């Protein structure tokens, strides 16, 4: 029989405001096994913890129940206190009477009754608890960063600087991400390439960083400290280590009418291409969908002109397998597609462009060599209308319900750059709210209004109509004047909402990392653990976690790196002792558990068993690798014969809890 102590926390008025804590302590005194019961305003405080320690020692407790906040909050605290008093930490259970009780109930009698029931369930469980001992697992001292944009590059550089090896996996032929496509950066207006490309080169040259560009993660196995990752290296049809990046092949390639992804399809590239001048790695890639040689076997010009003999039409996708201790998701974002916003005529007029396209138009290496001209006829536009919140803050399902955060600032930047270079251009910005929270951000926006005479109009554009003369009629409301405006513009720029990259969802499944309804990765704690995923060993960097500008992305990338370093410096990790095990006598060898296990911890083998009649029989039974099992419990609910059970959460314990609740 256990000797259980019950400790009820008031949490100030958080719990005591809705739950009669004294009544809870008194009621639980009568539960089987309970020999001690008390309450205290703050159990997590030094004094509160001493109450637990003293009670354990003085009453010779073999188990404890803390009625307090969520175990996610203070289970570790209380288990440490129990250990200090000589109790096995897994003999202590938390009854969550705050998040699951006092915070959600309004009246004292309901709250108190429920708190007592939750306490009873915890006591019933502790009666069946057994001491558990944590094992240890090794840490592979290498990190993987998925995504080679500014977030991924910064995280990798910071980890590498601390002396650990890092691999970057980037799906496109070069690292650099969206920042490489930008012209200038707010609020200082320095050139994006000038500050990004040195970092790209630094990453490429760092002895601790290996870049797998044009590669994708296809499989992730294992757990914190010991992940095994399969990486697909897509065939470039160019030998990466031989190609000098001279670009001769790109000039001679006869297939030149392929929309250039780097310039968002506003100009063309050849079938063999280098995305942009400062690409890292600076090697050519053959696009197999458009290459005549790969499609028909008749061409081979690039191989003829290549003096380095780097072209290899026979190259195949390669798969490599690597071990990592930590994984950082840095998969970034994309602007949304605009098929739900026909009123802005994006699909009907080439002179209606997204902000990222406008960024390329302004860029010296862009489709117009940095000259501001209309895509339709190459004429310099005299009137430009910027529309904010296109697809952001939309709850109808056409767009995204969140604020994309960066649009106010980049639109102010675009407006300012336009007025600076072309003072003869009239620039209008239609806004709902101007959101410029950030250091020097509001000053930046005010400069656009006050020094550059950008016309900011509070209101929204209802429609953009392409006219016969090539102009765009912009119909909008001016809410401050209470007027409807009709502006005949030469160009319209849409501040398009951003969304997580499409690859994030499948990656999250591979990593067993959680996501929100918008496909942004969820952080372990919104305020206190913003760069960690709830899945141990998975870290988050950049816009894959939520909309962010460059300064924020770089800060978060550094923070993620610190968390990774903190993990990699450890030689051993303490394992969770709450792992599954199979009862070989009950196991019928059906393989159901093996199929559902997300960690690959279950394997089957043939074993000999003695039968009642003294013969032996060979049966196929499951066994669990305790070092790999994360204790998720999927196998225990799947097992049709009840052979799988989870230490610390055994079927008997869970049923005892249910019984206590129903009693």
């Amino acid at each position, binding site marked *: 029989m256990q000797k259980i102590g019950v400790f009820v926390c008031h949490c100030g008025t958080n719990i005591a405001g809705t739950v009669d804590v004294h009544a809870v302590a008194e009621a639980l005194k009568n539960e089987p096994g309970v020999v001690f019961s008390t309450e205290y305003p703050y159990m997590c405080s030094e004094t509160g913890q001493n109450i637990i320690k003293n009670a354990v020692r003085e009453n010779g407790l073999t188990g404890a129940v803390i009625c307090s906040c969520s175990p996610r909050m203070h289970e570790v605290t209380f288990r440490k206190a129990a250990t200090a008093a000589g109790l096995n930490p897994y003999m202590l259970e938390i009854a969550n009477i705050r998040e699951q009780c006092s915070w959600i109930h309004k009246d004292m009698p309901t709250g108190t009754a429920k708190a007592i029931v939750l306490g009873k369930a915890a006591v019933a469980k502790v009666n069946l608890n057994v001491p558990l001992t944590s094992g240890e697992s090794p840490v592979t001292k290498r990190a993987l960063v998925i995504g080679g944009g500014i977030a991924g590059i910064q995280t990798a550089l910071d980890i590498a600087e601390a002396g650990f090896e890092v691999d970057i996996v980037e799906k496109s032929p070069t690292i650099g991400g969206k920042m490489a496509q930008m012209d200038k950066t707010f609020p200082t207006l320095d050139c994006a390439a000038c500050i990004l490309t040195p970092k790209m080169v630094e990453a490429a040259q760092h002895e601790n960083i290996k870049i797998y560009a044009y590669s994708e993660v296809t499989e992730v196995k294992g757990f914190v400290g010991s992940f095994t990752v399969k990486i697909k290296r897509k065939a470039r049809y160019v030998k990466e280590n031989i190609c000098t990046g001279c670009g001769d092949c790109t000039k001679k390639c006869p297939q030149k009418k392929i929309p250039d992804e780097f310039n968002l399809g506003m100009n063309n590239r050849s079938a063999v291409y280098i995305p942009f001048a400062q690409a890292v790695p600076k090697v050519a890639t053959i696009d197999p969908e458009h290459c005549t040689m790969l499609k028909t076997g008749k061409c081979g010009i690039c191989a003829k002109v290549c003096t380095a003999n780097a072209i290899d039409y026979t190259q195949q996708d390669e798969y490599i397998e690597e071990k990592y201790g930590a994984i950082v998701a840095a998969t970034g974002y994309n602007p949304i597609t605009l098929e739900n916003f026909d*009123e802005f005529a994006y699909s009907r007029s080439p002179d209606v462009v997204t902000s990222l396209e406008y960024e390329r138009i302004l860029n010296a290496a862009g489709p117009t060599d940095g000259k501001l001209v209309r895509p339709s006829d190459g004429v310099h536009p005299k009137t430009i209308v910027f529309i904010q919140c296109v697809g952001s*803050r939309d709850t109808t399902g056409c767009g995204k319900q969140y604020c994309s955060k960066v649009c106010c600032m980049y639109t102010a930047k675009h407006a300012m750059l336009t007025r600076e270079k072309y003072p003869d251009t009239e620039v209008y910005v239609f806004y709902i709210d101007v959101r410029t929270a950030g250091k020097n951000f509001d000053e930046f926006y005010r400069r656009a209004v006050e020094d550059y005479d950008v016309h900011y109009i509070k209101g929204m554009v*209802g429609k953009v109509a392409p006219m016969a003369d090539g102009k765009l009629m912009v119909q909008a409301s001016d809410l401050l004047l209470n007027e409807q405006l009709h502006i005949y513009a030469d160009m319209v720029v849409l501040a398009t909402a951003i969304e997580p990259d499409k690859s994030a969802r499948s990656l999250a499944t591979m990593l067993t990392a959680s996501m929100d309804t918008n496909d942004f990765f969820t952080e372990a704690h919104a305020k206190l653990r913003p760069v960690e995923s709830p899945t141990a060993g998975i870290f988050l960097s950049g816009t894959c976690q939520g909309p962010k500008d460059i300064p924020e992305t770089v800060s978060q990338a550094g923070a993620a790196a610190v968390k990774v370093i903190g993990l990699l410096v450890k030689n051993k990790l303490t394992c969770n002792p709450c792992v599954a095990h199979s009862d070989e006598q009950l196991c019928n060898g059906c393989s159901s558990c093996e199929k559902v296990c997300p960690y690959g911890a279950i394997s089957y083998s043939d074993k000999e068993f003695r039968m009642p009649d003294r013969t032996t029989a060979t049966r196929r039974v499951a066994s669990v690798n305790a070092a790999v099992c994360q204790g998720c419990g999927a196998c225990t609910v799947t097992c049709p014969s009840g052979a799988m059970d989870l230490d610390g959460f055994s079927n008997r314990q869970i049923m005892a809890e249910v019984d206590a609740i129903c009693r």
Partner: protein
Amino acid sequence: MQTLKKKLTEQVLRTSGVNVRKCMRCGKCSGSCPSYEEMDYHPHQFVYMVERGDVDALMKSNYRCLSCMACVERCPRGVAPAKLIEAIRLMVVRQQGQNHLKADQIPALLDKDLPQQAIVSAFRKYSK
């Protein structure tokens, strides 16, 4: 008076099924409206006036809305300003004691200034 206003507002909200609190004051409705210049009050104002409980002013001036539903279609928050106008029109009809208007009585009541689309939209409720 105050209670009557409140009752009218509640009636408009219930009839239209519009949640005016979802409005984020972007003005896309008024940017979309093809009949903007014709109206004393504009779509973004409908929503705000109903939210403030100022329904009687709308009841005196609302028939220039074409009921084209462009504002309903384009509102990024799903507020549906034109549905408020439909509800307000219905209230005017009811206040005039014509709650049980017969379809064949309509021609006599037609106003030549009334936009065709508004007439069509009025028929919508007699279609059942």
